[in-house]
């Protein structure tokens, strides 16, 4: 199918920047979420990794922010077609958090304050590909952007980067998270334009 929209030129404003298919360049930072922003207090915040055998490892805010952190500069791609380039974050690598945790799991379910969930293959959280981020652009991460801490998995569509994250459940078999149950793609690779199931 090759439908031409008469009189549409497009702005091609993105110049020679290479974006994933179907994406456009955004300079603001849009917010995508399904409900109210949950109040999350760092005094009671915790992050817990639970393995398939039920073993769990927990950090409170003080322990978490005492872990070695990294500065990350990365492009992000939202399934609602916008991409934002060169965003700057600070957070703890999942390699650090998963270090020493014994598991045979192939998948992880990220869980958030407010009830949001999203599923990610565990290898996509390892080897320097994912973080729990708590600063954006040099400042504490704002609540509407997922603060105090969110998952950051920038090589997948941004709904995988769960806001207000409070834990990971490691799983032997994949299950659907919140948007995935509603028809969004299980993996969500922007470069293969995996927006919806069947893509």
């Amino acid at each position: 199918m090759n439908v031409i929209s008469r009189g549409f030129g497009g702005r091609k404003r993105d110049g020679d920047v290479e974006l994933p298919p179907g994406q456009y360049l955004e300079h603001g930072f849009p917010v995508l979420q399904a409900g109210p922003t949950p109040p999350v207090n760092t005094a009671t915040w915790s992050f817990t990794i639970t393995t398939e055998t039920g073993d769990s490892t927990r950090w409170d805010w003080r322990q978490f922010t005492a872990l070695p952190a990294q500065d990350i500069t990365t492009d992000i791609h939202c399934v609602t077609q916008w991409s934002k380039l060169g965003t700057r974050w600070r957070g703890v690598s999942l390699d650090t958090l998963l270090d020493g945790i014994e598991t045979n799991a192939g998948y992880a379910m990220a869980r958030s304050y407010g009830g949001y969930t999203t599923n990610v293959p565990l290898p996509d959280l390892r080897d320097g590909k994912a973080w729990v981020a708590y600063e954006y652009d040099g400042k504490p991460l704002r609540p509407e952007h997922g603060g105090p801490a969110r998952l950051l998995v920038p090589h997948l569509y941004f709904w995988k980067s769960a806001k207000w994250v409070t834990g990971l459940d490691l799983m032997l078999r994949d299950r659907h998270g919140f948007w995935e149950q509603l028809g969004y793609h299980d993996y969500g690779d922007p470069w293969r334009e995996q927006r919806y199931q069947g893509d």
Partner: protein
Amino acid sequence: MARTAVSGRLSWLVATVKEARDETATARTLALDVPGWPGHLAGQHVTAKLTAEDGYAAQRDYSIASAPEPDRFEVTVQRLADGEVSPYLTGVAAPGDQLEVRGPIGGWFAWQPADPRPLLLLAGGSGIVPLMSMIRTRDQAGSQVPVRLIYSARTPADVIYQSELSERVRVSPLTVSYLYTRTARRPPPEPRDTQDTGPQASGTAGPGGGRILRRYGDRLDAAALAEVAFSPRQKPAIFVCGPSGFVESAADLLVAAGHLPGAIKTERFGPS
């Protein structure tokens, strides 16, 4: 029956503009003929793809404005000053022109006519569009649930669907409360459907039990919400759509008023 969620492979369909009509100086409704379109749930959106002569293509998501029916739907597009696609859809696209669409998308921000709960809708600017689909769908389906809409717009001239909303207020249990954020005073010649009830607000009741309220120079706050909203005890279904700042403050006000976070569904657009 439209599906409740995206399922199977969503393919691109050819859409032909059947009708274009201006809603405001910057918003236009396009009625699209889309053979093979399965219908949708009120609140869902669609991805539109425009392809230029040289093969360059751009995609954007738009909320569906119409009540569901097979093989056609309407979108209302707000022109963005620096937009790439919206100036085309609101200014150039004319009957007979074609684009591609994929959807419906989004099974969360969606209202089902079988839902028995009262319906509370909060719109900021063009966030009215998916909520208008809910109002139209309710009437089309014969649902009897009462509906209350709080609609924040910069000025009366920025209100989309004004005459249709007035007519629906006249004949159905729909209450509309307009908040004009950048018009400080009521203009002297009053619209016919309005009568004074106070210095700021004005309203009138129709035979359907609905009424129209207008507040000038007001942003949404706890008082404006309390004036119109159902109480948490009435367990309304709540949908909020608009720019991120509007949605953020509306959702916070709703939670502070005692509504359960799980009953509040939000959809946002634009950078924050």
